[in-house]
């Protein structure tokens, strides 16, 4: 199996996640789409690690997963706070991030 097929799946996943970030307006769905993009990058790293025959790419995947977990924790806490303050998590509401 040529490694390029994994790269192709990863590129398509990243693009789908990007379209989701641009199209959707719900902040929780935006975070899900960011998770999609992070997973696409992880897939690329794992495929490249296999291609080069070393563990470094897998170590990077591990760290990306750690950072994604931390990001989700803080981001969801922010979303909960925004919802309780504003009554909406629509990211297109004017002045959502002002104040």
């Amino acid at each position, binding site marked *: *199996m040529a490694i390029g097929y994994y790269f192709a799946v990863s590129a398509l996943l990243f693009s789908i996640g990007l379209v989701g970030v641009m199209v959707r307006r719900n902040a929780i769905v935006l975070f899900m789409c960011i998770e999609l993009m992070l997973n696409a990058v992880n897939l690329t790293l*794992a495929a490249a690690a296999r291609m080069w025959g070393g*563990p470094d790419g897998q170590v990077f995947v591990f760290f990306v997963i750690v950072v994604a977990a931390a990001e989700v924790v803080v981001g969801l806490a922010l979303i909960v706070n925004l919802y309780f*303050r504003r*009554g909406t998590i629509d990211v297109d509401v004017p002045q959502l991030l002002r104040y």
Partner: protein
Amino acid sequence: MLLLAQAAEAAAGPNTAEIVLFWVFAVLALGAALAVITMRNIVHGALMLVLNLLAIAGLYLTLESSFLGVIQILVYAGAIVVLFLFVVMILGVDRDDLLLAGRGRNQIAAVLGGVLLASALLFAFVGPYTGPPSVCGSDAPIEVGSGQQRCVGLADQLAEDDGSGAAFLGERMFTRYTYAFELSALLLTVATIGAVILARRKDLEIEDLDQEPDGGGVPGPDGLGPHDHDPLAAIGADLAGQDHDPADVVDTDPDDQTPTDEREG
């Protein structure tokens, strides 16, 4: 999955299993990703995200990275998506709204941008790696032309330990990347403390919601804002009744509240 792999391996050459599993998991991952960004119900979207993450874990398995597959299932499907579902259910935002919000030109531009990015990535990043030198596994070519990087594969390294890849990964992580590992531990601690501080709503009183000039009542374009206001005030009253003594509730000097709001906002 293992049965599928064994069946495929029995049916044809040893490399057929990887090809079959790759296509199954790739189609699953892409379809689930499309479902995530198109589902109107957020809970359904989160479940589709689980499916996508499981499919990517399967792709890790076909990439001989079984430890990463296990970590992916544990951390993503087991922790992160559960956190998403918790927040969705706490906020009660499983209404089918906020999808394709009536700005058709922006949506078309977003999809066009995604297609452009996908084609650029496929052209520049995928094309050079579909030739014979990049084939890993049992049918990998022994010799490739000069200037071409042969796919090494992980079989040799994985044969040295128990085959799971954990020792293979951990040895490098705890030698060369020890510093990054310690930093990630610090990052997790900071994120936990930050989440606890953000989730603490001691200063959110009833007045805090009612006195904001245009705060909680910002009406969404589709009228989301105002009708969410009353249940929130009820929640705030409930919390104030439970967690604060009466003196604390009565003592709501706006001058005291304002700097706190500025900082936390």
